[in-house]
Each structure stands twice: as C-alpha cells, then as structure tokens.
C-alpha cells in the first residue's frame, strides 16, 4: 500500500488564535505551532494500515518553512518520507487553492490511499478531504471511525460516523479517507523514532517545482477574503438557577432566551 497522509501545522490548540493585523491571515509568529492534533489520528491510521499490509507512508504538508517541525513529528511517529510544499507565494491561500496545490503534489505520488483528518483546529473548514477527492477524481469516504483495507480486492471499507450510529461505506482503491478522532489512539514517538526522523527522505518543493503557477495560489487570488475580524467577547458571568421546585422550567426558559432550544 502506498499511503499518503496530509498534515498541517497550526497554532497551538490551547493558544488564543489571532489574525495578523496587516493582511488578516493566521498569525503564526506570536504562538507556538504544533501538528494539528486531529492529523495525529490520520498519521496513526496510515501507520497501522502499513503495519498490517506493508507499504510506505508519505507525509504531505503545505506551509511555511517552520512546518518542517510537523513533518518531523510525523516521521518520528514512523512515516517513511515526506513532501513539503513551501513557498512565499502560497501565503494566504484559501481552502480551494490549498486543495489545488496539495492535489498536484499528491497526484505525482500515485497513492493507493490518501488519509486526511476531518478538520484542522485553526480554520476548522472541514473540507479538505472532499476537495482533494474531487481534485484527484477519487472516491471520498469521510468521517471514518474504522477503516478496513483489502489490498487484494482493491477496496477500502469504512464505518462512517453518523448521528445515530454508523454507515458501512465501501469504495474501490485508490480513494480518499477522512478519519475522526474516535478511530484510534495515536502513538507517542519513541526516541529512536525521533533520531531516525532526521535521516528520512524529505522533498521540499516550491510552487514552480510542484507544477503550479504563482498566480493560482496565495492571498491575492484567493476565492475567499477576510474583511474584518473581532476578538471573541469576554466570557459573561454565569447565571445560577436555584431549584425551588421549578428548576427545570427555569433552565428551559434560560436556554430558550439564548435560542439554544
């Protein structure tokens, strides 16, 4: 199995996220940056499939130079090699442009399986799996809480998470699978893995080398634009409802005023 897994470096999940005042893109300089937590599940699943069926796991990311830290983490978990698409021209790309650029890179790797997370914790668009599948012309199996690959039959079957249970969905390979956090427990890299990571092959591509035109990507030609942003309002102090026999009604009343029910 030739497995490609996409990862993204994002501002630390627990840090307050800000936009850069000059161009309203994500501010990555004032915070620690980490691998998108949900991507760890994708990497873990890719490694488990490889351990079961053999093959190779290639990590693909698009991001600034610093995103190499996230690549290194995936490699230290056990991925075999990586491709890092990095170029100043990519700065400010939206989801559509990102999917175009990533699909270009992934297509050259001829994968049997592409694994993505359901969403990244910064933009939380949750569309990359679907966009990549369309761009690559592959079937998409999203919200997978379990993945079963049958390389001999050339199929992949998933349990697709639904509100009231799950749906069994099957597709022929190659395919794009998006995984949810329930799917596994990502491993922690071992020190041996950390040491081995720096010796693993890493290909760094600029826009031109990836076969992209600089005018197709980046902030200037993005299909969506951030006009303005407001910081999250400070948290209001809570309301304490004292139960004098009518606690339930009072809570329902409160929820109704908040338009929650």
């Amino acid at each position: 199995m030739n497995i490609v897994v996409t990862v993204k470096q994002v501002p630390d999940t627990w840090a307050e996220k800000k936009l850069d005042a000059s161009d309203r893109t994500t501010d990555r300089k004032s915070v620690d940056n980490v691998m998108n937590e949900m991507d760890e599940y994708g990497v873990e699943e890719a490694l488990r499939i490889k351990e079961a069926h053999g093959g190779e796991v290639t990590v693909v990311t698009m991001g600034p130079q610093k995103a190499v830290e996230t690549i290194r983490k995936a490699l230290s978990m056990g991925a075999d090699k990586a491709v890092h698409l990095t170029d100043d021209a990519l700065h400010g790309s939206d989801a559509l442009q990102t999917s175009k650029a990533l699909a270009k890179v992934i297509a050259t790797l001829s994968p049997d399986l592409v694994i993505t997370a359901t969403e990244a914790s910064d933009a939380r668009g949750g569309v990359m799996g679907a966009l990549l599948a369309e761009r690559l012309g592959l079937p998409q199996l999203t919200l997978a809480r379990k993945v079963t690959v049958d390389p001999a039959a050339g199929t992949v079957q998933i349990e697709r998470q639904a509100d009231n249970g799950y749906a069994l969905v099957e597709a022929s390979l190659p395919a794009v699978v998006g995984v949810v956090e329930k799917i596994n427990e990502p491993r922690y890299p071992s020190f041996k893995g950390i040491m081995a990571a720096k010796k693993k092959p890493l290909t760094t591509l600029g826009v031109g080398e990836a076969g992209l035109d600089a005018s197709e990507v980046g902030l200037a030609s993005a299909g969506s634009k951030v006009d303005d942003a407001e910081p999250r309002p400070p948290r209001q102090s809570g309301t304490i409802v004292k139960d004098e026999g009518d606690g339930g009604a009072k809570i329902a009343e409160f929820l109704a005023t908040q338009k929650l029910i």
Partner: protein
Amino acid sequence: MPDTRLTDEQESLRSTVADFAREVVAPVAGRHDEDQTFPYEVVEGMAKMGLFGLPFPEEYGGMGGDFFALCLAIEELARADSSVAITLEAGCCLGAMPIYRFGTEAQKQEWLHRLCSGEALGAFGLTEPDAGSDAGGTRTTAVLDGGEWVINGSKSFITNSGTDITKLVTATAVTATRDDGQKEISSIIVPVGTPGFSAGPPYSKVGWHASDTHPLTFADVRVPEANLLGTRGRGYANFLSILDEGRIAISALAVGLAQACVDESITYARARTQFGRPIGANQAIAFKIAEMETRTHVARTAYYDAASRMAAGRPFKKEAAIAKLFSSEAAVTNAREATQIHGGYGFMNEFPVARHWRDSKILEIGEGTSEVQKLLIARQLGL
C-alpha cells in the same frame, strides 16, 4: 518555547514526553497518590515510548540516546507526577545501569533487553537499616558455597523492588573481611523468585505514594557464582560511581517538581480573586512566583551543565552534587511557597501542589542527603 540549549532531537523528545505527561500521567496521578497504587498502565505507556531504554545502546534493546535525554524525560514526567519520574529514574539508573556498566556480556544479554523494553524492572539493594552513606555498616553477607553465593541479610527503602514486573534485585553484600579489617563489599544479582528472597509489605511513606518501595529479606538465598556483578570487592565503589550520574537525574526530577509548582501557582494566582482582583496582582504573591521561577531556571541550568559535562566525557562530580543540592532545595522551597499561595486549598489532596509538597522532601534525602552533597562539593574543592 523551545530551549535554545537543546538540539532539535532533544527538544522533540522533551515535548513528546511533556505531551505524554499532560495527557496520560497527570489525569491519574491524584488517584494513584490517594490509593497508593503503582501506575502499571502509565509505566506501560512509558515503556512503549522506549523511555526505559533511553540511555542504552540499541544492541541491548536501548534507544541509543544519552543520559541527558533521560534527564529531560524525567524532568517532564516529574512536572506531572514525581512517583512516575522516580520509577523511571530508578529503573534506568539503579536497575539497568549497573548491569550495563559492570555486567559481563552474558549478564547484559540476559537482562538488558527486558529492562530497556520496560517489560521488566530491576532494583538496587544498597541501603540497610544500619548502612546508607556508611558502607561499613553493611551487614548483608554473601558466602561462596559449592559454586553458589549464599546471601543473608536485609535491605531498606528499595525502589521498584516489589512490583509485578520486578525481575531482579542487585544487592550489595559483605563477601570477606580484608587484611586491614575493612569489609569487602561486592554486588550480586538476585532474580526475583529465588527461594529465600522476599519483599516485605510496602512502606507507608509521606510522599511518592505511587512509587513502589519495600524492605527486602534474604534468607539463605542461593544464586550461581556467575551472578557476581563487576569485580569482587568493588561493589560499593562501583555503586558510588553510578550515584554520581544518578544525582543529575534526581536534579532533573527536582526541577520538574519545582516547575510544576510554578505552573500551578501561576494558574491559581490568575484565577483566584480576593478583594476584587486576582491574588497574582498582589506583589506578595507575584514576587513569590518570580522567586520560584528564578530558582527553577537556575536549577535547570545547573543540571543541564552537569549533564552536558557528563555527555562530553568531562569531570562532573562537583557539578552533579551542586545540581542535586540546589535543585532539591529549590523543589522543597517551591512546593512550600506554592502550597502557601494556594491557601487552604493547598492543604487539600485534590490540588496537585499538596502532592508536590509531600513529594518534595525526599529529594533532599534520597541518593545522597544535602549534607552529603556539601561534603562532596567541599572535597572537590580540596577541603
């Protein structure tokens, strides 16, 4: 923010163990402390990451890292739970290290793979009711009889000696009396399960509740002559050389605890409001925390220095003693101050600082008291 003194690999290891400590160790630390139970599930997770094999070469199942790497892991674990950190420290420095340093090839092959994988734990039995820093007080004896050592005696306060996965104890014993009347002390490997060897009930300790500590009894314990570890008569001297590096590891543990006290105090001082403002806005509290941070920073610098010297093959005896002395006292002071900052809540076991306070005191005692550290430093100064 990454520490500029660390290499990329050291920083990756540090942050990986920090994630593990936050996600796996911290959530169960309070429960294991309260119940005084050994955290097998946490130790298994540490084993999977290869932490027990960190400073050992790959040919023996190790990770091929160095002692500095082990110290970084110990510090991060201690930020969540000192018991878990000492389990790793004792497993590596006292259980496996003597065998790696002084063992024959056969002994290394027999034990190190299991110890490095974390599947088995080893313990070192040195301390006795009448012998700690004073080796002359050792009463445990080992006599050769028909190609076997016959061991009799008892040991006190032995870490990792009674878990379900403890597979060996290396014990120091008097093997002869020298011509000058001094005792000849040697180290002998005793596999768990050898008839006559037993671990007594666990101690009731002030802290380190989730760390496994027992008294040991040897009653006509017979092991093959080949279980002698290192040169006959060098048992105590060999162990002292192991303790030099163990001090750096204890220092790292103390820094982790001191840092945890800073972290908890900052969170609490921001959240706790009295007289209409967070208590951290009062200089009486803010200055305490500034001093705690300073102590932690200096203590970390001291152990980084000792560990770097050791890694570079330079003398580090004095620096290790300085790091152990300063950081253990920093940990005790920080724990006391953090408890004070938390007020009444600091005396409640549900707050981690209460556990840190109980866990801190042993750091000024174990692996050489503060007084012994001063003695070592003074001797290095030619006094």
